[in-house]
């Protein structure tokens, strides 16, 4: 922090926002000083985004906003009309939203989007604007020619888009930068770059407000933390002390999730499980972490290839998955791991190579020859909501899965099985009549897991199962997966770019880059002593993200 009395670039006191009769945010107070990074942390629905948007005057039109004090960059913006707000937005406060995928107008050239703030708030000529945009783009490590070549957002990758958005938000040198979930859905390497860009704005003197559900993300980057829960601020203070001694239950859950994410590993968890599970028979079922009692291979992939046009997505990938073991497949976005998962599931026919299931051919194979064995391999995807027919209830989803497609309702014995399936994943029988679309993200994923287990499969393929969930919910679902894996002995293929998640559940790890398998081995080894430079880079990025900008000092 700079010396002298820090000028707050954001000063909020007593903010209350309600929609209809529901209060979303109650009596929230928050300050951000110049050059300071404050993290606003909470689960989904806790009101953090609502708070941030109120600070920009961008609350939903039907919302009622009451506040005792609201000062942005020194201006008292209470009661500002829309017209006066427009002068403030972009010039005094910049906003980086969470949906990088859609936050750049897909029909407008990126260069123009970045130049907008200048066009709206300064009197620079077109040529001067172009120069400024070029400068801003190279500052975020993008090609400066983007300023004038008319290229569209669709030609940029997710990480590049987010960086362009940061350039667009900071080009006006605002005093306050608000970043709402800036690294969601980005893999660690890209996330580090994004955080670094934000850091640059901060060191240039701006105040930074980062909103996130993941305490682990900001632990290394923020100066102070403000925790919201159910619309209220429940705890705040310097990052280190909040981490060391969380007081509120919500904070404790966040800290727990963050710690599990960074330090947990398969071996570590097992030691903890054996210790905790007093008298728990499952403790005996916990297999061998060292890799000797391997068992025969339930899934064998050999030389898989898949290309789309000229682009090779999977290139000569082979592995063996022993019964009851979990294989983590890690790689950056675009490395081909999702295509690999789809090939394993038989959703795409590979251009070359085979997969056998329990010794019998599995891929490539005519669907009608494979259909009766489908029950042995099931899947859990990133966004389960779209996999549920919107007309079906929870009960029907499970009844259908348990009865191989015959039952629509679950009465009698089938009903008991549905309840048992729900209980197995931590859901209550009261949810039976609900539509899956009305469940929370975590509940939906649990339902998807229950559906995947319903047929008593030998292998479950999971493609980014927790990436779309809040940190605390991720923690809970991963815990569930660990427990289920131990109690049912099912083999899993866990595909993800999130190393923290893979570290928790995987026995063996396969590292994918550019469609090729560059490293393969027991998790403990790959994570402790990575041999391939790609693996080193991935691990390094994850560590950097957790540690923050002063990595050495951490």
């Amino acid at each position, binding site marked *: 922090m700079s010396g002298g009395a820090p000028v707050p670039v954001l000063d909020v006191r007593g903010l209350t926002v309600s929609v209809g009769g529901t209060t979303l945010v109650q009596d929230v107070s928050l300050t951000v000083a110049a050059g300071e990074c404050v993290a606003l942390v909470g689960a989904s629905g806790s009101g953090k985004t609502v708070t941030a948007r109120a600070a920009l005057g961008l609350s939903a039109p039907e919302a009622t906003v009451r506040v005792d004090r609201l000062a942005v960059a020194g201006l008292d913006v209470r009661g500002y009309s829309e017209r006066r707000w427009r002068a403030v937005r972009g010039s005094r406060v910049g906003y980086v939203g969470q949906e990088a995928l859609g936050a750049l107008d897909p029909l407008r050239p990126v260069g123009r989007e970045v130049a907008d703030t200048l066009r709206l708030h300064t009197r620079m000529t077109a040529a001067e604007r172009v120069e400024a945009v070029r400068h801003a783009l190279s500052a975020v490590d993008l090609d400066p020619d983007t300023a004038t070549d008319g290229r569209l957002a669709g030609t940029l990758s997710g990480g590049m888009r987010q960086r362009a958005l940061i350039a667009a938000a900071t080009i006006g040198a605002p005093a306050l930068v608000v970043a709402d979930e800036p690294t969601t859905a980005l893999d660690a390497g890209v996330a580090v770059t994004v955080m670094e860009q934000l850091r640059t704005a901060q060191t240039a003197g701006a105040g930074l407000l980062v909103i996130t559900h993941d305490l682990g993300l900001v632990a290394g980057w923020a100066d102070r933390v403000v925790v919201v829960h159910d619309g209220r601020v429940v705890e705040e203070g310097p990052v280190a002390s909040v981490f060391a001694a969380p007081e509120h239950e919500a904070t404790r859950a966040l800290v727990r999730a963050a710690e599990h994410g960074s330090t947990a590993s398969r071996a570590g968890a097992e030691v903890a499980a054996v210790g905790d599970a007093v008298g728990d028979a499952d403790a005996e079922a916990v297999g061998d972490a060292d890799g000797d009692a391997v068992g025969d291979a339930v899934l064998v992939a050999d030389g898989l290839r898949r290309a789309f046009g000229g682009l090779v997505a999977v290139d000569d990938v082979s592995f063996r998955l022993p019964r009851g073991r979990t294989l983590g497949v890690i790689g950056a976005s675009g490395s081909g791991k999702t295509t690999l998962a789809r090939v394993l599931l038989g959703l795409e026919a590979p251009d070359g190579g085979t997969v056998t299931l329990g010794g019998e051919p599995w891929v490539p194979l005519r669907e009608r020859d494979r259909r009766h064995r489908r*029950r042995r391999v099931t899947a859990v995807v990133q966004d389960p909501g779209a*996999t*549920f027919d919107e007309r079906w209830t929870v009960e029907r989803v499970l009844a259908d899965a348990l009865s191989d497609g015959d039952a629509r309702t679950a009465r009698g014995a089938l009903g008991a099985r549905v309840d048992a399936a729900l209980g197995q994943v931590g859901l*209550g029988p009261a949810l039976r009549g609900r539509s899956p679309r009305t469940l929370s993200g975590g509940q939906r994923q649990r339902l998807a897991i229950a559906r995947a287990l319903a047929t008593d499969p030998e292998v479950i393929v999971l493609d980014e199962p927790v990436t779309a969930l809040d940190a605390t919910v991720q923690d809970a679902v991963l815990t569930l997966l660990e427990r289920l894996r131990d109690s049912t002995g099912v083999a899993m293929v866990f595909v993800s770019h999130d190393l923290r998640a893979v570290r928790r559940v995987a026995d063996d790890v396969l590292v994918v880059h550019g469609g090729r398998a560059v490293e393969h081995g027991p998790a403990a080894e790959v994570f402790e002593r990575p041999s391939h430079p790609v693996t080193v880079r991935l691990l390094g990025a994850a560590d950097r993200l957790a540690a923050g900008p002063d990595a050495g000092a951490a």
Partner: protein
Amino acid sequence: MSGIAEPRLQADASGAAGGRSERFRGGTLGPAGLVAAGVVAVAVLAAVWPALLGGGDPLAVHPERALQAPSWTAPFGTDESGRDVLARIVAGTRASLVVGVVATLVGGVAGVVLGVVAGLGGRAVDAVVGRVTEVAFALPLLLVALVVIAVTGPGPVPAMLAVGAATAPGYARIVRGLVRTARRSQVVETAVLLGRSPARIVLRHVLPAALWPVVAVATLGVGQAVVWASALSYLGVGTPPPAPEWGAMLADGRTYLQTAPWMSAFPGLAIVVLATAVTVLGRAVRRTGAVR
């Protein structure tokens, strides 16, 4: 076990939060929908029981009372033969409603069949049907209708067939698009992963997803069909005189536009009101979620 991390989870596990089936998301029709429903109800009543609403015989000719302005005895005035305009409008409701609904059914069913075939079939089938619908689109609706009527002769039934034939390609295109989208959806992919047979997937997931929205579109189509059928009558190729049909009444009223504007105003209003009501009602029903 998860502690406070998922408070909603705990609340639901104890059954506190609402859990009725979300199928019929209740919701009211809204003020516009209610008004529209009322109008349609009146129209249906007029179609079923004309005597209840408009006094008099629609065909009764009273030359001595020709071209009278609206009055107590004839609230909508009389036409050139002394017939009561109100009575004719009420009597014409049945024809308009029936033609509108039947024409939409004809077009809808034909379109759905074509669309489903194109959507489920392979590339060749899709291409063929696609070309056919493109050709059908290339001909203006009225041209198709006129040609159909030229072949079959005028009358209410040919009018229904003509309008139905002309609107079928529109439905076909919509249904085809919906079927194709449904085929690629994650719901279908999940069903494949669960090992369901193609027939079951189509029946349980693809068709319902594609067909329910068509019902919503069809209610809008009824309004359009009413207008087009009236257009055919106006041109003299629909229901023959002296039957009370709104379009024909407008044609009759054309010559008396300056002297007896009520002959044209009220039938036209009737068309607009009925078609609008049906459209608004269809939209409101769709918004309640009962038909998604």
